């Protein structure tokens, strides 16, 4: 076999993220264990225990407190991190909005998992899509390497004084969180040179007191929300530049959205995280079966890179959007498909949009299933309803 990967070490995505936290010299980690996030916080604890990371670890009693403490730590001037999934993520929900509202540059990793009830510990993306309107920058990673790299990029983005927004990095629970794969980790000094600590400009400091978290009457509140609109929209070029600069420094970059084997494709399948990496592996075989299909990988989700989307899809016939979350009772019952239909109207795209929900609760999707979905995209029939692929009727 060829020797392809240089310097790589075997890491799960969870451990890759823990390594990023170490290499970023994060000051405060505040987290509560939840499956399948746990090995992130276990590994971080181990780094601190061994003296490889100098940080305060707050063993909070809930995810609500985990994010609360991360927010206040970051507003005191520290670099703060937390990680969560599923029910814990849902428990944080109030604080998600507060983090973005207070403009706290917190970074959080999300090992995406389904939501109760009934309880399922397995992967889908209900938790993250439930939080898409919380004002966070949201980036999906499709490999452990990308997760490591994206956490590093995230701090540079979040702490940029023109951004000052929290960032969440989403990846699939178990399928990525617990999978060992090659990851190149970087030298800490080089990482910190790329993403030097930038303290919050209005931090809690007795020498220059501020009041953070005021009650804001109707004549002011709207303007603060509009500031958030401007900040997240304005972050898009900063996210893009950060990724480009990362590429120049470390030799790896990902773009805002990835179009894979798609220049010559008539039809695209839009998906993210583990489905994207799996589809990349399957596409050559799918092409061999005469299906002229490519992959449109969703990476930066908030802010949505609309221009990239238009660029990649304007000459395509069919776009099959895979959702691994359900927007119950919505026009399309996949949250992403709903948004894409809006993006199409806004930009006058005449794609045939096919909305597919699948992989709910980690229902296995195998090669044959991807092949079937590729066929659906390739055939290009109209499907008015969201297709619940793989469900037993």
């Amino acid at each position, binding site marked *: 076999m060829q020797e392809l990967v240089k310097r790589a070490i075997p890491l799960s995505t969870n451990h890759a993220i823990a390594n990023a936290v170490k290499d970023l010299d994060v000051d405060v980690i505040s987290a509560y264990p939840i499956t399948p996030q746990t090995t992130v916080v276990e590994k971080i604890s181990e780094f601190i225990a061994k003296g490889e990371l100098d940080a305060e670890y707050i063993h909070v009693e809930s995810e609500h407190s985990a994010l609360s403490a991360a927010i206040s730590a970051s507003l005191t001037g520290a670099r703060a991190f937390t990680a969560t999934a599923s029910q814990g993520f849902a428990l944080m929900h109030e604080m998600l909005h507060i983090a973005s509202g207070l403009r706290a540059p917190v970074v959080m990793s999300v090992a995406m998992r389904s939501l109760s009830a009934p309880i399922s510990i397995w992967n889908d993306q209900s938790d993250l899509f439930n939080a898409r309107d919380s004002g966070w920058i949201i980036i999906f990673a499709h490999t452990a390497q990308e997760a490591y790299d994206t956490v590093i990029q995230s701090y540079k983005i979040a702490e940029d004084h023109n951004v*000052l927004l929290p960032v969440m990095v989403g990846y699939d629970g178990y399928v990525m969180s617990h999978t060992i794969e090659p990851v190149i980790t970087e030298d800490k000094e080089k990482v910190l040179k790329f993403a030097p600590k930038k303290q919050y400009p209005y931090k809690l400091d007795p020498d220059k007191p*501020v*009041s*953070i978290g005021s009650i804001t009457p109707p*004549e*002011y509140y709207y303007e603060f929300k509009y500031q958030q609109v401007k900040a997240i929209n304005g972050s898009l070029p900063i996210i893009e530049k950060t990724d480009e600069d990362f590429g120049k420094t470390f030799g790896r970059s990902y773009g805002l959205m990835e179009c894979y084997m798609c220049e010559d494709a008539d039809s695209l399948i839009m998906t993210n995280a583990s489905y994207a990496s799996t589809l990349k592996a399957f596409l050559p075989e799918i092409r061999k079966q005469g299906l002229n299909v490519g992959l449109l990988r969703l990476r930066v989700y908030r802010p949505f890179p609309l221009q990239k989307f238009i660029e990649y899809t304007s000459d395509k016939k069919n776009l099959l959007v895979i959702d691994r979350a359900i927007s119950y009772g919505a026009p399309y019952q996949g949250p992403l498909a709903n948004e894409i239909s809006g993006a199409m109207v806004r930009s006058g795209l005449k794609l045939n949009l096919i909305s597919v929900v699948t992989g709910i609760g980690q229902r296995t999707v195998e090669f044959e299933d991807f092949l079937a979905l590729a066929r659906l995209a390739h055939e290009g029939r109209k499907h008015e309803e969201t297709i619940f692929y793989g469900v037993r009727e």
Partner: protein
Amino acid sequence: MEKLVSYTEMAPGGIVVNPGNSLEYKTGDWKVLIPVINQETCTRCRICWYVCPDNAIIELDKEYTTKKNRKYKVSYDVNSDFCKGCGMCAQECPVKAIEMVPVEVA
């Protein structure tokens, strides 16, 4: 009413970067009654200054000599801009040196 500014001129997140500006927010017009301190009978015990929730009893480095020739280094006054007229100072005054009178009278 304060001038309302564009979103670009506000620090993010509802953060007040110049705390202490509450002095622009006069709460004194809430009151109907205002305390009047009798400097003659006042014993300078500082209780009224202590209890006032609004910091509206002011302790001044102003000497005062009573008619009975008792000398005090300080005097107490009421900051009408912030006194809400609750009357707690008068109620707690051990020598009844504070009287609550209608604002118009004062």
